Structure formats: structure tokens, C-alpha cells
């Protein structure tokens, strides 16, 4: 076990835990944001640099500070380590810089992007970004392509977190997409004429932090905050069958895996559950799902709404629209 202090809060974690996971055990504001790290995928992280933190004391044995800011998602804690995250102006400055870098080539087309409302980059930019850009040159753009028959790749939005390549490496039996080219011309793409059609390929959509990979069966159907997420399960031979149904009325618009408060999926689901069972009848409904991370979805706290009260309210509205006199109970008193 190692004792580590993050922003003045001490926590004891097993050896080999990363700084990020130690911070998550504390929770709250001291947790660094992460765009490329993904707990359930091995070897992810270290690329986006938004989780940079300052280590002011390496360990009890070697109290020297580390010379540079380190990526907290890939740096293991040492006993006696002292870490500064939000208490260090240097870290906040660097993070602001990284957010700016991530945004200079991002199209910022949130109004027409399906990910809006559940986008990690949106949240990150809202929290750490500047109000205006200093970048005035042309942004890089790519053509939209279909990778596989169910996934749309909108490379212009991609922040190159590499998560989807790790999904293909670790969940499917062969990866047929990857990163082509170099530098800011690099793009995610498939090998020539190949399509991503593996049974677990749909998880690429869930791990994508931005709107680069979207579900073609859900594209432009609805804004996520107009849908109601419901926990449901079914007996599936390929996966756990535990999913979230994104519904509008009785209609299931989208099926996705369940994400935790950090937007990470612990139980990946198969493509059959994701695409082929868009009937309420196929699922055993467990109840409304609370989405922690993206407050915009749970904004109305629909899961706490009294349905009977709502019905009465709707009836009242309808009556009002028909030009009839309002029932007595609603007149101002």
C-alpha cells in the first residue's frame, strides 16, 4: 500500500495504482480530467495530456520533485508522493493550453453533432477552456466515411485518443482500422476496402470521447437530452446484456453500454444487443438511469418525476390549448 497526498487530501491505495485512479478514490474536484485514458482498456492513456499533474515530492525515499508535469493516468503512485492538481497554477495553465490545442482543429459543430450533451470534449472545454479562440487559420477537415455498416466516422471531430484502436485490439479478434499518416494529418481509417464489422466493434462508439464515431442507427434521430435513458437487460449469449436504452415514448432510439461517472464502460456489449433489439419487448426494464457525468441529460431529473402529476399537468395544458377555461385549481390566487 502507498500513501499519496493529492491537493492536500491523503489517500492510501495499493501499489501500482496510477495517480489518476488514486484521485478518483478521493473523488470530487481533485480528479484530473481524462480524454484518452480508459480504465477497462489496457495501455490507454498518456496521449491527450489533459490529466497532467505536478508531483512536488516523488516519494518518501526520494523526495525530489519530478522535473516535468506528468500524465497522471500513466504514472504510478509511490509511497509518500505529494501531487498537486487544481492547487497548482502551472497545472491549470498547462491544461488550459492542452484544451486550446484540442480545440484549434475541432470543428465546434456541436449544434449538429450527435455527441453534444454527452461529449467529453464539450465538458472539458466548458470547464477549462478559454471563451474565445486565438487560432484564425483554416481548420483541418476530412471527408466523413463509413467504417462498417453501422458506424460513421467523422474524422474532423476526432481528437486522436486512440481508444477505438484499443477496443479493436482488445475486444475484437482482429483490428482492421488504425491511425494513418503523421502529425496533424493523422487520421483514423480502415485499411483499404475493409469494414469494421466485428461483433464487438460497436463499443468503439461508446469509448469515443467526441462525436467522431457515431451510431448510424441513431444519427440525427434525437438530441440525447430529449431521450430518456433506462437501464435494461436481456439474456445474451455473447455479452452481459446489461445496457442503457435511450427511449422517446415507447420507441427505443439507441442502445448503449452503461457508463460510470467518469464516462467509462465497465461491461462492453455486443453488436446484436446494440443494433438488433430496438424493441421495448426485447428487454427487461430495470428503471431510469441517472447520468452523472453529463448533467445536461439528467438536467430535468426525469427519474424523480411523479408520472401521475405529469399526466395531470399535460391534461391541463391540452385543455388550455383547446381554448377552454382553466380548472379552478390553477388560477392565480
Amino acid at each position, binding site marked *: 500500500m502507498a500513501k499519496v497526498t493529492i491537493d492536500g487530501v491523503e489517500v492510501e491505495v495499493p501499489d501500482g495504482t496510477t495517480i489518476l485512479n488514486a484521485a478518483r478514490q478521493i473523488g470530487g474536484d481533485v480528479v484530473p480530467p481524462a480524454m484518452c485514458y480508459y480504465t477497462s482498456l489496457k495501455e490507454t*492513456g*498518456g*496521449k*491527450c*495530456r*489533459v490529466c*497532467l499533474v505536478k508531483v512536488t515530492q516523488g516519494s518518501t525515499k526520494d523526495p525530489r520533485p519530478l522535473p*516535468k*508535469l506528468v*500524465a497522471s493516468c*500513466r504514472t504510478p503512485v509511490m509511497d509518500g508522493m505529494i501531487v498537486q492538481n487544481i492547487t497548482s497554477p502551472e497545472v491549470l*495553465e*498547462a491544461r488550459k*493550453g*492542452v484544451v*486550446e*490545442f*484540442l480545440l*484549434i*482543429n475541432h470543428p465546434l459543430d456541436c449544434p449538429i453533432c450527435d455527441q453534444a450533451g454527452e461529449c467529453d470534449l464539450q465538458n472539458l472545454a466548458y470547464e477549462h477552456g478559454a471563451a474565445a479562440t*486565438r*487560432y484564425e*487559420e483554416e481548420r483541418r477537415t476530412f471527408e466523413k466515411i463509413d467504417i462498417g455498416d453501422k458506424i460513421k466516422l467523422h474524422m474532423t471531430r476526432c*481528437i*486522436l485518443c*486512440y481508444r477505438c484502436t484499443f477496443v479493436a485490439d482488445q475486444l475484437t479478434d482482429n483490428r482492421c482500422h*488504425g*491511425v494513418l*499518416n*503523421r*502529425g*496533424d*494529418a*493523422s487520421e483514423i481509417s480502415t485499411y483499404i476496402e475493409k469494414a469494421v464489422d466485428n461483433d464487438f466493434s460497436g463499443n468503439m462508439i461508446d469509448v469515443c470521447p467526441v462525436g467522431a464515431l457515431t451510431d448510424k442507427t441513431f444519427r440525427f434521430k434525437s438530441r440525447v437530452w430529449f431521450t430518456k435513458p433506462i437501464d435494461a437487460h436481456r439474456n445474451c449469449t455473447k455479452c452481459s446484456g446489461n445496457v442503457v436504452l435511450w427511449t422517446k415514448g415507447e420507441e427505443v432510439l439507441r442502445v448503449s453500454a452503461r457508463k460510470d461517472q467518469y464516462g467509462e464502460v465497465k461491461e462492453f456489449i455486443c453488436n446484436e444487443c446494440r443494433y438488433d433489439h430496438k424493441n421495448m419487448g426485447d428487454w427487461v426494464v430495470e428503471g431510469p438511469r441517472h447520468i452523472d457525468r453529463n448533467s445536461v441529460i439528467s438536467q430535468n431529473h426525469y427519474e424523480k418525476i411523479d408520472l401521475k402529476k405529469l399526466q395531470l399537468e399535460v391534461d391541463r395544458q391540452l385543455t388550455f390549448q383547446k381554448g377552454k377555461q382553466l380548472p379552478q385549481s390553477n388560477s392565480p390566487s
Partner: protein
Amino acid sequence: MPKKVLLEHENVPGINRFDVYRKHGGYASVEKALKTMTPDQLTEEVKESGLRGRGGAGFPTGLKWSFLDRKSDKPRYLVCNADESEPGTFKDRYLMEKIPHLLIEGMIASSYALGAKTSYIYVRGEYMYIVKILEKAIDEAYAAGFLGKNILGTDFSHDLYVQPGAGAYICGEETALLESLEGKRGNPRLKPPFPAIAGLYACPTVVNNVESIASVVSIINMTADKYNDMGIGKSTGTKLISASGHINKPGVYEIELGLPVEEFIYSDEYCGGIWKGRKLKAVVAGGSSVPILPANLILKNAKGEPRLMTYESLADGGFATGTMLGSGGFIVMDETACIVRNLWTFERFYHHESCGQCSPCREGTGWMEKVLHRLEHGHGRMEDIDLLVDVAKKIEGNTICPLGDAAAWPVASAIRHFREEFEYHVKYPEKVKNPKHFEIEPLVSAAAVAV
């Protein structure tokens, strides 16, 4: 005549052939090492010699060797970094082209010290003709029994392979090189683990520059004590310097570390002074990645002492008034050189060569290049100069590998020392539209009074 160690026989005709090389004392170090020394003794010898990595970072080679995980039962590898892509650096090419056997000799001796049964020379893709030279030399060494099984009758066996890269600057970074050598995309790895613990194929690996490995030969031949005598302080031995730019005699020179910079630039033995009788304006002392210094600061440090060609002396004053010896790519600029244009060229290079793995470098290098393009072509604004400084600051130190730093340092230093030149570009856009504008109207800032 300065003492030459690496390039002693550079002008011997046919030195690239095994028989000629052997006649001039070649492979003596392998004989000496294998027959009279243990691997640990040899490592100690290199440690004592004070040899520092010649690839750019200047990390002590012996210390690097001693970090190698010798307890693990995995095979150990030695990899020679011949992916010399730093703009302004061409010393390894010269060495491998002229005396390929020197590198091979060093590889055998170093592998013996590290206990590596297999080693690789990773050559940059543009040096395809050198791959052929090295392969021919390796074949000759195999035929003479210096490579293969039971070298010189001892139980040390060794195989050496040459692997050409595909022409990416980033593959000169040691972990990216290992990725590329494994056949993957050349993205730098996150450290730790360091290659000494988990390098090539997750086995303990040492990655050394061509010149470092070639220097091991001289260390064995002349013993560490004698090698130590050359140079000053912690910068021992000799160094190959690739001199280029506005000088009378560009080329590769072997210098003893500790040579005054002024002598190097102006003596006829080396660069032979600035061409066309012009004045010195600025020097990039160690390849494009290191900070640029104006004439007054490269000849003398901030305290007024003459600057020497050593790791310490060039770094004197930190990044405020100093630079680095780096890989020895010595680029000299005369009074007509345009610093902005030069910097734009450098940044174009880094933008093109960024691997795109981590965000600050991927996006920041392109951004800096675009802003510099604007300045150089007369569309700049005053606030662009501060923007460049700020972007460079946000890249520096926040990336996975040193490429981000390498892209940020030249920008920060050029603006630090030559700010009025950037302002000149903003104030007189009509004057800078001609690519050779500085040839016509030399601009020497007051701070950089030429010698």
C-alpha cells in the same frame, strides 16, 4: 594538427574495405576486449572514460549501460541509433559512409560489454546507400570471423543486422525507434519503463548513437585514462561537428571537446570564417532543436568568458543566455540571414515530423508554423509574437517525447534574442515579401553586434 580519433584514417584509400581497415589497426579493440577483459570491466572502462551520448542529450554512456537489467533472463539487445535526422547534423552519415567498419567494431565490442547476442543498426530511410555499405562491411566481418558464432575462438557469439527506417524524424527518438524496429507505427512510448528494463520486444535494451558506439573503440584501444585526458571536465574525448551554413568550409570536423567556439568558426583548420567577408549574426550550435544564440552570446557567455565547445560551456546560462551542444549540428548564419524565415523553416519541419500522438505537439507545431508563415509573408501582427511565445511555452515539457521541446525551444530563443527582427516583419510587411529581403538590406540588431 588537432588530434583525430574517430576520423584518424578517413583519407586512407579503401578504408571501407575490411583488409585495409584491419591493416590500420582495425578490430584491435574487439581482440583486446574479448581476450583480456570481462564485460563488467569493459562497462567500467566506458564509465571511467566519461563518454557522453553523442546523439544530442549527452547522457553518460557508461551510466546508461549500467542501468541495463542484467538480472533478467530475457535476451538483451543493443540498438545503434543511426536515424540521424536532425536538421544540420550529418556526422553519422559521414562516419558510416567513410569508415563503416569502425561502427561494426564498436557494435561488437559494446555488445560484448552488454552481453547482447543480437544487435541492430537502425538507419534512416534516406540513407539507403549506407545500408548497402554497412551490409557489405558486415558480410566482410562475418567472413573474417568477427561476427557469427564463437568470435575469435571465445564463447561470445554475435549477430548484427541493419534495418532501414522509412524516413521519419521521430524514429530517432529511442522508444519510437524501438517501436519502428518491431514493425509498428513509430510512436514514442511512455516512460517508464525505460528501454534498459523493457525495450526492444520488451527485453532490456540499450540504444546508442553511432558516434558513441564508434567512440567505444577508441576508449578500448587507448584505455579510459588516456581518453579522459582529451577534453575538459565532464566533456571528455572528441566530437564530430557537422558545420554548415554561411561559412567558408562547411563539413564534418572532429574536434577535441574544449575547443573555443571562436577558434572553431574562424580558424582555417575548421570552418574558415564567415563567407564573403560578412559578419557573424547567429549560431544554432547543436542541430535545429537547440536554442539559437546571437553572435555575442555564442562567442562569449553572459559573464564574458569565452565559450568552449563542451556540453557545460555551451549550456552555461541556461536557456536565457545559453544553448546546448546537442548532436553537433553547427549552423552558422551571417548578417543577411533572416531569423524569421529560418525559424519558419524549422517549424515547418517539426510540424511535418510530429508523430501526432499527443495533442500539444500535434496541434501546437502546426499552429506555430502557420503563425510564422504569416509573419514571414508580411501578414503578421504584433500580438502574434507573444502568441508564439505562449504556444511554445504550452508545448514545452508537456509532451510524451522531446520532439515537443525541440519544436518549442527554437521559437522561444529566437524571439528572446531577435525580437526586433520579428517586429521588423510586422512593421514593414512590404519589405519582407521578397524571400531574399535580408540579402538586400541586412538587419543586424543592436543586441547582436557582429564580430
